[in-house]
């Protein structure tokens, strides 16, 4: 919600009297957690802004909705209500329903919010992002595999400049904008910060992060996040999470991902609430932004980053041309995965190898290498020098 829209709601409610102002800090994206960051780092400013808004609408009552596990914020004189954190609560009817019943559900707008809000009283709900919004500025979270940072930048700033100024190495990897209801953007896309919820979060991925694994975990997150009332969101998140999980587990075929292209746009158009529509948009965007890396998993059966354990269970093999059959490796192997017989080429049992690499470190001939799936190795006892 834009600040001007909020002002209109507040003014309208002020004219009706007996209103309730709700500061909603429970509607965060689970990756961005922007409201939470604002409430932590700009607690004083947020308190002032909330009080000012409550005054603006001549509220008789003030409620702070806090997500479970976050209790370090409060406003004097306001009632604090702890609820499960969910993006579904971004919509006012869902937030009202949560306050009224404790149930998480995206709801039809039956009460003609905000005039008949909680207990039939005019109710205005705003989050920290809206309350602290400044014209021309954008508060956003920059998140990487190991850092989280709340930034305030000028609208129009190039995203590449932000990443550079924050010392994030360029990785030729896609970038996630906005979290679970956002979109995955290919690395090469020039982006400038806009004043939209998509820019609540910048999540550049590093060279070591696997996009198939990322996709699977994003959709698994979305499944958790869904209130699971609407069929398309409940079953859609489940199906799409399962599809991406198949990719990470090497179970996907060329026919697997097109299902997301088939059902994703339908869910985006048909899901009940903005969360359901948003997460479907994300799933579809992942397909195009991460195509090359996903295809590696499906077609080449490889995880380039080595994150997906299913096919990147690293194993070693002994180069039959270099092996001198001296038995050094055999003593070193903690798994007893190496077969040794004097004058015969040593062999590593791939099923038993855990990829610890200890054998390779002791082989003076340098015969032991990470198995690339291509090198031919003997499958039965073969004398040194006889393997062809």
């Amino acid at each position: 919600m834009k600040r001007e829209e909020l002002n209109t709601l507040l003014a309208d409610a002020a004219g009706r009297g007996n209103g309730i102002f709700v500061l909603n800090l429970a509607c965060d994206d689970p990756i961005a957690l922007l409201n939470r960051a604002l409430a932590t780092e700009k607690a004083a400013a947020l308190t002032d802004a909330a009080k000012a808004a409550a005054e603006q609408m001549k509220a008789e009552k003030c409620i702070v909705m806090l997500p479970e596990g976050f209790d370090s914020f409060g406003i004097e004189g306001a009632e604090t209500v702890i609820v499960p954190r969910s993006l579904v609560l971004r919509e006012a009817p869902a937030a009202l329903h949560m306050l009224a019943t404790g149930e998480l559900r995206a709801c039809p707008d039956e009460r003609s919010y905000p005039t008949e809000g909680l207990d039939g009283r005019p109710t205005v709900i705003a989050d920290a992002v809206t309350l602290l919004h400044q014209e021309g500025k954008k508060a956003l979270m920059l998140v990487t595999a190991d850092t989280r940072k709340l930034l305030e930048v000028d609208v129009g700033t190039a995203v590449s400049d932000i990443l550079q100024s924050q010392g994030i190495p360029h990785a030729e990897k896609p970038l996630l904008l906005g979290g679970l209801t956002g979109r995955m953007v290919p690395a090469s896309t020039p982006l400038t910060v806009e004043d939209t919820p998509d820019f609540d979060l910048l999540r550049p991925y590093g060279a070591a992060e696997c996009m198939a694994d990322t996709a699977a975990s994003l959709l698994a997150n979305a499944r958790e996040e869904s209130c699971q009332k609407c069929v398309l969101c409940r079953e859609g998140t489940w199906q799409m999470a399962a599809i991406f999980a198949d990719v990470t587990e090497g179970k996907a075929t060329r026919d697997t991902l097109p299902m997301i292209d088939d059902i994703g746009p339908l869910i985006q158009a048909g899901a009940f609430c903005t969360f359901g529509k948003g997460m479907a948009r994300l799933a579809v965007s992942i397909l195009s932004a991460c195509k090359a890396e996903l295809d590696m998993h499906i077609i080449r059966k490889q995880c380039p980053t080595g994150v997906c354990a299913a096919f990147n269970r690293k194993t070693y093999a002994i180069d039959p041309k270099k092996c001198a059959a001296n038995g050094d490796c055999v003593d070193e192997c903690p798994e007893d995965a190496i077969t040794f017989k004097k004058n015969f080429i040593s062999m590593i049992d791939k099923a038993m190898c855990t990829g610890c690499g200890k054998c390779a470190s002791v082989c003076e001939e340098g015969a032991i290498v990470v198995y690339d799936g291509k090198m031919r190795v003997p499958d039965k006892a073969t004398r040194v020098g006889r393997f062809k």
Partner: protein
Amino acid sequence: MSEQVRLTIDGKTVVASSDTTILQAALDNGIYIPHLCSHGNLHPTGSCRMCLVGVEGEADPVTSCITKCREGMVVNTKDELAEKIRKLSCDFMFKTHPSECTGCPKYGKCQLASISQYVGDTGRKLKANTISVAANTSNPIILHEMYRCILCGRCVRACQELRGVGAIKFAKVNGREQVVIDGDSLKNADCRFCTACVEVCPTGSIREHPEITEKLEGKTREEGYVPCRDACPCHIDVPRYIRFINEGNYAAASAVVREKAPFPHALGYICVHTCETQCKHEYLNEPVSIRNLKRFAAEHDDGEWKKNTFRKPESGKSVAVVGGGPAGLTLAYYAAKLGHKVTIFDAGAKLGGQLRYGIPFYRLPEEVLDKEVDEITSDERITVQTGTRVATPPELLKQGFDAVFVATGVHEGIKLPIPGSELAGVIGGTNFMRAFENGEASVGKNVVVLGGGPVAMDCAGASFRLGAENVYMACLESYEGMTSPKEELTWAEEEGIQLFNSRTFNEITGEDGKCTGVKVQEVGNFRRENGKFMFDKLEGTEQLLPADNVIFATGQKPEIPTDGSFGLELCHGNYIATTGPNGETSVQGVWAAGDAVTGIKDVISAIAAARRAVSAIDVYLGGDGNITENLAPVQYRDPNIGRIEGFGDLPRTDPRVIDPKTRVSEYKTCGPMDKGFDEALARCESRRCLQCDLRCDLEPQKFWNDYVGKEGEGA
């Protein structure tokens, strides 16, 4: 503020209120939009995504069950994108649902199957995502097979929003949404067992236990869903009067009973309450004490109902009623109201039949009966001739009556033809009871009652009151199989009866022409075959019960002679043969009903038969035969029954019964032994009603062909 708006749905101009949803407007105008989570009695949630439609100017399809009609709206129910989304939603639901349909108890009545038939299958290769949750049959009445659940949420809304109970709810179990009980059992979740959840479930997930479902076979919703009302031969609207009692409007409750039967107070004392035998509260603990509630209501009758009763102008026709028992009095009551002049002939000194002579006054006080009889006979259109036995009822037609109704009952006790049954001191049960009522009976120290039904219980009770020291009761039935109502058996036991179950009677011993005892012998393998009692005598088990008096309570029969003098065709000995469902007899213009037709049965059945007969007689006499009455005020059935802590375990309220010693020794002065309910007890018991009738107020499940059938007819 609602206003009329014009919109276009599939090219058709529709006028609807701005309060109406697009879905409702379409259905009202014969245009079907698939919908599943939507239900006429529940708030819409828009969760099934079946009712999506295209609306001009909207980028995405619109949820028609939650979107109100607006002026100028152009709706396309067959929008391509909307249809694709519907199919996807349907695909999704089927991936969570067992694939076999034919083994499901809801097969053929499943809304999911029906809607998928309409929407069509895409053949998409989605992953199966079934809910692995075991069937829960541990709760009474309602069973859960939630592996069939498609999470439409209708049950949850019905329980939470409509009923205000909240015994079931949504919860995420292992990350997956499910409908669960809010507690470890329905009883502990304070379920009211109203079965609204069962009614609204579109699939086979929430159902009633098979033994309950089976009883619905071939019945309408109104019949099947309200088993007490259905079981009552007169179909008295039991839940309605219990609700009036619960609301404190006792007179209205009595009026409800009067809509179907003219003796609410007497019935309140002695009705065999088949309603209670079918009451679904039985599955929780014990049935609702319906008879005592009826009696309590009748005690508070204020006569207001009389303002609503019908009374047709005089027809100029006359009806003779032979026999002034429950059937005859019922017939007279309605026939007079229908405009006919009625003359009641009765052989006894007073009217009432079995109510007066069969049921002892310590159970049904005479003044209660007198008052209700007088209420009927005070009608100026009714004349009473007591002490008059009509030998040949059809003769009355020749004497100028336009129709004759015969309900002479069964007043002759059957003495089984065993050795000694002719001895002095041996008496038939009904004869004994009549003598008791007339103050003419006496017994010795030891009394043996043969038989185990309700008459036997009264004979035993009367014997105690006449001073018998030992009352033995021998019957063929086992203890569990005894045909008397349970409470009457309990009372007899409290008074000291000594029971000899599973016994046959070999002979009555005697001395000097007077009985001294009964030889009884144990039987095994007791059964009924072709209406006959069959059993094996167990060797070496004969024993002698001492008896100064032996009372045969083994059946009774009409006093009708079999020589043809009665003028009506008889059957099964001397019972009146009827030729039609309303009591038509072999003689045109003569109807018969009651025990003389059916053999000994209950009062409420006799009343029901008389109601059918009076309608038929009225039609015969040129009337419309309609005796339907709305005597009680209109009742608002509040669907929001709310939560009552511990509802499922609320115990059946005991009536106030005088202690056995007092009620036997002071039977002449202590009034009725059962004092029934006072106001507090009645209110307490009325809360226990499951209000099964509320389920009838829910919209019945409809299928697409129910709507499509109407399409084209237009609005």
